[in-house]
């Protein structure tokens, strides 16, 4: 049971990581002059959309968290709306945090906001897919020893990795190398992306490695 689930997790994660690689390569075939560095904002949009679509589909197909009770259509719609609001709020929150970290307040708002959207895609969207708009569950998962399935473990790892990646991505900004990738927010968004991909790959491996220690309590 656990092995099979782990395999499903690995497949899903590899799919996500692969899709990010594809977002960097495929659009160049359709769009003239597309490159991750040159037309970074376009790439940010494409990447966010792809990752979110993929995540939502995977969530619907694999159903890692079996919905506890059958719910009516209106309930579903309200859940969906709540999810949208939560996602938007998380974008705003990330934007605010990035500005607090020193991003310019007025100029390059688009860049900052798209970076915030990317971060939200890597973190909040996954939480929404897995846990739904349930803050209590979020807090449980992100507290110590709070994960109750390998999916939640993977969620913990990828989220942490993406945020850490974005954090480390800010390091090269002050260097005076004058490279194109030092322009705001390229290094940060690339950092977050690499962090996310690393998280996706690390998570199944880590769970596999520690499968003896991981004992999930039934809810």
């Amino acid at each position: 049971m656990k092995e099979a689930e782990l395999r499903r997790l690995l497949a899903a994660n590899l799919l996500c990581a692969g899709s990010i690689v594809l977002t960097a390569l495929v659009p160049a075939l359709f769009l003239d002059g597309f490159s991750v560095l040159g037309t970074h904002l376009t790439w940010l949009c494409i990447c966010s959309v792809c990752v979110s679509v993929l995540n939502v589909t995977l969530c619907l197909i694999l159903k890692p968290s079996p919905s506890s009770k059958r719910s009516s259509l209106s309930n579903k719609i309200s859940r969906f709306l709540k999810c949208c609001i939560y996602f938007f709020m998380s974008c705003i929150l990330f934007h605010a945090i990035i500005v607090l970290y020193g991003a310019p307040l007025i100029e390059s708002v688009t860049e900052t906001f798209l970076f915030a959207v990317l971060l939200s895609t890597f973190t909040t969207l996954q939480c929404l897919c897995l846990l739904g708009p349930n803050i209590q569950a979020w807090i449980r998962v992100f507290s110590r020893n709070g994960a109750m399935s390998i999916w939640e473990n993977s969620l913990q790892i990828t989220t942490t990795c993406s945020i850490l990646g974005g954090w480390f991505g800010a390091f090269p900004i002050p260097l005076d190398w004058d490279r194109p990738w030092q322009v705001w927010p390229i290094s940060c968004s690339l950092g977050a992306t690499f962090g996310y991909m690393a998280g996706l790959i690390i998570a199944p491996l880590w769970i596999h490695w520690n499968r003896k220690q991981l004992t999930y309590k039934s809810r």
Partner: protein
Amino acid sequence: MRGSTSGSGLERCWPLANRRAGRAGAVAADWPEAGRGGAEDAGSGPGAGRRVGRMRLRLRSGALAAGCLLAEALGVALFLRGFFPLPVRSLPRGEARAQPPAEPAPPGPGIASNWTKIPPPLFRKVVIVLIDALRDDFVFGSKGKQFMPYTTQVIEKGTSYSFIAEAKPPTVTMPRIKALMTGSIPGFIDVVVNLNSPALMSDNLIWQAKAAGKRIIFYGDDTWVKLFPKHFVEYDGTTSFFVSDFTEVDDNVTRHLDRVLKREDWDLLILHYLGLDHIGHMTGPNSPLVGPKLREMDNVLKKIHISLLSKEGEASLPSLLVVCGDHGMSETGSHGGSSEDEVHTPLLFISSAFEKRSGPLTQLELVQQTDLASTLAVGLGLPISRNNVGNIILPVVGSKTMREQLRFLHMNGFQLSTLLQENTPAYEKDLGYEQFKIAEKSHGNWIKLYLEGNNSEILLNLGKKVLKQYLEALRTLSSSLSKQVAQYDMYSMMVGTVIVMEVLLLLFLSVPKALSSRAEFEVPLSPPLFSLLFYLMCLMLCAVHVIVCTSAESLCYFCSMSWLTAVGVMMLISALMCGILSAVGKILENSRLPLKNPGASSSSWSEVDVLILAGTIGHVLSLGASSFIEEEHQTWYFLINTLCLALCQELCRNHFLLKECDLQLGTTMKQNFDSIGEASECKNIDVQAASNSKLGKAASSAEFVKGSDKWISLASPWIILICCRLLRSLNQTGVQWAHRPDFGHWLTSSEHKSELSVLAAISLVMIFVLVQRRCSLVSKIAMALGLLGVYSYRAAIGNVIFPWQHDSKDISKGITEARFVYVFVLGIVFTGTKDLLKSQVISADSSVKSTGLWEVYSGLVLLSALLFRPHNLPVLVFCLLIQTMMTKYIWRPLKFDAAQITIMHYWFGQAFFYFQGNSNGIATVDVSAGFVGLESYVEIPAIFLTAFATYAGPLLWAIHLLCYLSSEVSRNSAAVGHGCFCYALMRSIPVAIYIVLVTGLRYHLFIWSVFSPKLLYEGMHVFITAAICLFFTAMDQNHSQKVQG
């Protein structure tokens, strides 16, 4: 240094630094009676029974830290002295003067050049107009076109040559004057001694001119008069220390002009105008005051030029007018660094000897500032000064014949190659030297042809080729000479590094002991093994010292010190070594013993701990990159932001997880308890409160009352983050983004004076509100009056306006107002000290002590309110606000331990250092703080005030740390000791690593512009931290006595 040599107990080998601290009254127990002291409190501590040594020194960790920091300060001072040697270049000028070189002899026998004397002067009179902080775009840019019409016309259509002269950092006036007049590049240490300039001893243009019988007149900055005493037949020096004086300094120069220009009894006239620099310092390059000043300068130039032209007909030789700047100014109006705005100055030669410029000005040629000295020497018919590394600017002598031009270049090349010979043993392999020899040879051939009376066409072409060869050779020679400016005194540097590294090691090794609950060390006072080791090491080091000093060829500071001092330093090194060895021994001994409580070591690290560790290591590593040093403020802002977010997460966990376990009362309860307990043990009380609340809804109402407090607590990290973000945009600092517009500039521009006044007034009121709550009544009143005084001081010097005072009153220096504030500062600090002494002597309750500490703190706040520029007052407000919020809502509820709190204080202190507009460049030091309330420049108070104003951020945070920790003494009796130790450790790590890094990078391209200023800042910070730690130890001492008493 002196203390260690005069040590009375050298026969006993224990760390001298510690001993010294003991004499300073910092050691808890008097060591000769340590045995008795140990017997007395044998019952009080579990470790007391284990004491077996005869002579033991009990040392509190605070005292250890203070002692270590004092030793470290000594080490850093030695290193700095070695790193910034006084440049020793050519032989002193008094020695036999070499004759100027003759023309190179043409090959072949029989023919010899008959021209051996110095070429005659090219100009009859030379006027040098030096305008301080004249940036290149003030003359060549749009400002020049707008405000300097006459000069622009001369540049574009007149008989002139214009260049952009590049100044070498440090771009400070005195080194630049030296560079202009000697042609050499003065060492970085000139910045430090900039404030009291001694006479210039090396060979220079002024001295040569005087020796040649030229009559020199000087008006302007009295730095010249100090540099060249008795060189001028007539002079009038104006002091440059009243930065707020814009007009009088220049009127004092111009008033002599009419009279002097009519006279004929001078050959060289030097004018140094300071007004522009003062305007730059006070209001920046874009201030509306710059335009009129430039127009004034333009009129001066017009007057001089017309007067020179009118006399031209009478004499055979033309006159020369040189216009130059000593350095530029940055976008903030200061200078000292190496940004393009600071190093690019205009250099204008105006003379009727030159060809009339036909076309408009094309691309300006970039020359070195040092090139002026050799060019002027040739122009005045003087020998080129020996230390010169500059090249002759050829266009200036371009109107002369080919033979003369070649002669000039040969003289210059000869002088440069002589300098190279004196400074490099392997000079013959130098590319420039080889090129010069080749050029010299072809010059000889050319002279042969010339003397033979060859065809002028061929001669001219050949001459041009030789000229090109010479120019190439000169360029290579001067660049290889410029590289050699830095001669490091490696021996002193090594000794300093060894001391600093030993201190760091000792601090590291004593971490487990120092942060234990007792925070005490037992230092055995004379184990035979160590005394033997100590003596051996001393002997060995002295032997090494003798060998090094007798064999060293270059000048070495450490060798030139007296033997007694040197031996003292050696003993300090050996004592530290013994301390390290004994600490290592103890750790090995302990590791052999089985761990008594494995539970303590298994406690996992919280996120904040990980962040603190990673941040410290990351910051230290970042010191290796020049960009990270330039933008160090970004590192600190980034770190404190992350710290705030981590604290926010900690707070959330503290509040929400409890709620969680309140809701899920089932089996998960226990698990959550585990997780909470792991996070931090201290939440037990809250957990109990939460578990109590499950009994009924009644309890939850009580919780609801606390609810508002809880939400404020949750919001506080965000408020702090917002404060930090606002402060970040108050002062843009660093290098890359320093030109970005910021609030500070917006406020200081003259149009926004009323906004600035309102902001300053609100800030002062806020400061009062935030500070007064823990002061006694008397201090409250003094504080209020003092803050009023601050405002009236700022109003008096014209920074802010009173609402009822609409007409701009004449600006005074505000001496009375500033002194009025000083009285209150001293009064408040005195009251605080009195309370502290009272609590020490009478050993009253701790509230007296904490009030006393707070009063000392508020006195310092008042002093910094006076010294800070008015637009920086919000920094002070936010500093107090953040401290209050942190104390009330974060540190107290989360119950961090002393070490964590100390490190957070240190981080915030560093961030505030940059928030107040400092950077790692010399230019941002606000020198005007040193003149607040002083009639004229007085060295000691000026240095003290400037240092205080610069380091106000770290200092205020450190004193606040002391206030906080001593109020926490009831919870953890060793808190102050832990804090002091951590503070010392936090300072020692970056300094030690940085010193090693700088030694490794001493030939880096940016060593002078980036690494050296940072080194000075680090050194200064060590000295200040040592003082802070002594204060900490003194406070700790009180406490420990009280506990024992």
